[in-house]
């Protein structure tokens, strides 16, 4: 397969993957991804587990009626659906703005270079 031109600083041969891996855009992509996905995961897991923990520890609180027959527990459970819709929406918007352009850029850049080097 296509090996890319030698790395200018070290002089060793770099494969396409290594070249992409060292590209500042790829480094930035990795960093952005990490900075978003783990905090987001912690957030929704904590929000979700709070429902289960409260259901176990505070059935009275959960059974408190807020509006008519609607208990706090049922509304909290419904809010999980809203939370899921909002997190999915925020994630999608973030990915479109912060991830997709970088990924498309890298694809564009290296697809061409690999082709040239290969032929």
């Amino acid at each position, binding site marked *: *397969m*296509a090996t890319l031109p030698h790395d200018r600083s070290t002089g060793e041969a770099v*494969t*396409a*993957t*290594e070249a*992409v*891996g060292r590209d500042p855009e*790829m480094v930035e*992509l*990795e960093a952005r*991804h990490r900075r978003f*996905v783990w905090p*987001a*995961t912690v957030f*929704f*897991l904590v929000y*979700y*587990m709070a*429902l*289960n*923990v409260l*259901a*176990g*520890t505070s*059935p*009275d609180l*959960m*059974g408190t*009626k807020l509006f*008519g*027959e*609607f*208990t706090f*527990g*049922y509304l909290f*459970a*419904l809010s*999980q*659906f809203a*939370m*899921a*819709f909002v*997190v*999915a929406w925020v*994630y*999608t918007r973030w*990915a479109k703005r912060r*991830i*997709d352009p970088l*990924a498309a850029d*890298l*694809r564009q850049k*290296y*697809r061409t270079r*690999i082709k040239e080097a*290969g032929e």
Partner: protein
Amino acid sequence: MSDQALSLTLFSIFVLATLGITVWASRQTKTAADFYSAGRRIRGWQNGVAISGDYMSAASFLGIAGLISLFGYDGFLYSVGWLVAYLTVLILVAELLRNAGKYTMADVLAYRMRQRPVRSAAALSTVGVSIVYLVAQMVGAGALMKLLLGLEGDTAAIGAIVGVGVLMIVYVTFGGMIGTTWVQIVKALLLMAGTVLLSVLVLAKFGFSMNKMFADAATASGKGDAFLAPGLRFPKTIELVSLGLALVLGTAGLPHILIRFYTVPTAQAARRSVNWAIGIIGCFYIMTTFLGFGAAALVGHQRITAADKAGNMAGPLLAQQIGGGAGSFGGDLFLAFIAAVAFATILAVVAGLTITASSSFAHDFYASVIRRGERDEAAEVRVARITALFIGAIAIVFASFARGQNVAFLVGLAFAVAASANLPTILFSLYWKRFTTSGAVTGILVGLFGSLLLVVVGPNVMGPKGLFLKGSDPLFPLENPGIVSIPLGFAAAWLGTMLSREPASEERYEELRVRALTGLGAEEAEVAPTRASART
């Protein structure tokens, strides 16, 4: 014509019509027919509907409605967990998996590793998770047939499970290999339509007042306000936490859901399909409120448990009640319709599970391990068929023992197994540089057998409420093993990595990250595989 015969005739007509639509739909387009081979051309929204079809099983339709109708609030927690679980899929797994894999879940797990050990372990856990999941579907189908045929007693219940199980497996093995995407899409639409219809009619009975529905359900349950609060099914916090963990983490480890992401062309399409699934599944699960509390108020505890002691028939009985009650034409008609929807639901899920498990066994174990990668498609298909029959037979046998259980509860166990066996290795493969082959294999095997063992020595199989050693206490106190088995799976994968001498697969990790995050290798896979490239 007796009521029984009328329901049954109508049910048969509905089921045949559904199968007819499926066959017709799958012939209308070439996309569905060739999606496994020439794939990656399914559109995002189509895949989203298909994922919903694969996901909303007997557990969602029959099981949750049953749990809510008998225990009120606690049953609804299943609905919440099974929806929020899609955030794990969306944020951590779907897009990276789409770019990194090809046909089966093992493609991603084995990407950086030595192929044969990891593929063998992944095939085993795919089959394991699928069997537990199938058992639940068979239990639901058996209960449905028992209700429709008006059977009574244990022998008849087992007979119903065996009969309907054999029919389904034969249909899937010999007829349903093509066009499963359309089975899922047709089924998802039917299920949504049936559920919306039922929900609206239930609400109409209460003058479109949810307050009245909740109040009537609480009164009819005999539990009063406790019915609207947690604690009737799961009084212990630890049990709720264990179940919650299994539900929220299990979906991202379900092989039959994960392989759906291979059918779309890009990571963005994978993202879109999860978003569609979240929308559809979310709406469905919110409506389980009406099915469950509606059945509690209108059908009542006694009649629900008389038909099936775990409550699995609450939904169909609710339909019969709304249609005009047992013995009326409207009641028989609506019961037959909802029963047919439930049957189509189960059949579609059985198809998805069986095909995933048998193709993983044929592709990851038979072709990669036994034949050492030598291609023989005819033999692979033959092995897949035999595996499907074998898996089906095992599921039927276990289902006849599990027949007294609630379907949602049983599927909750499959989620615990999936979260324990598959999720640690999926996440470590995608996110942990140091991860090794030994870690992957240990993680899968310890998670798989650990979770299965804890179920077997748990209160539903062992001890006074279980199947064996009824005189002694169960060795493990929790019904769902998630809180122990999921950390155990992660710990085993970590320890297996730290204790092994093999070098970490760091170079391949970088390759996987590039491919997963940018789609760079993924798109080029057909022309110039980057896999071979790194070695040359």
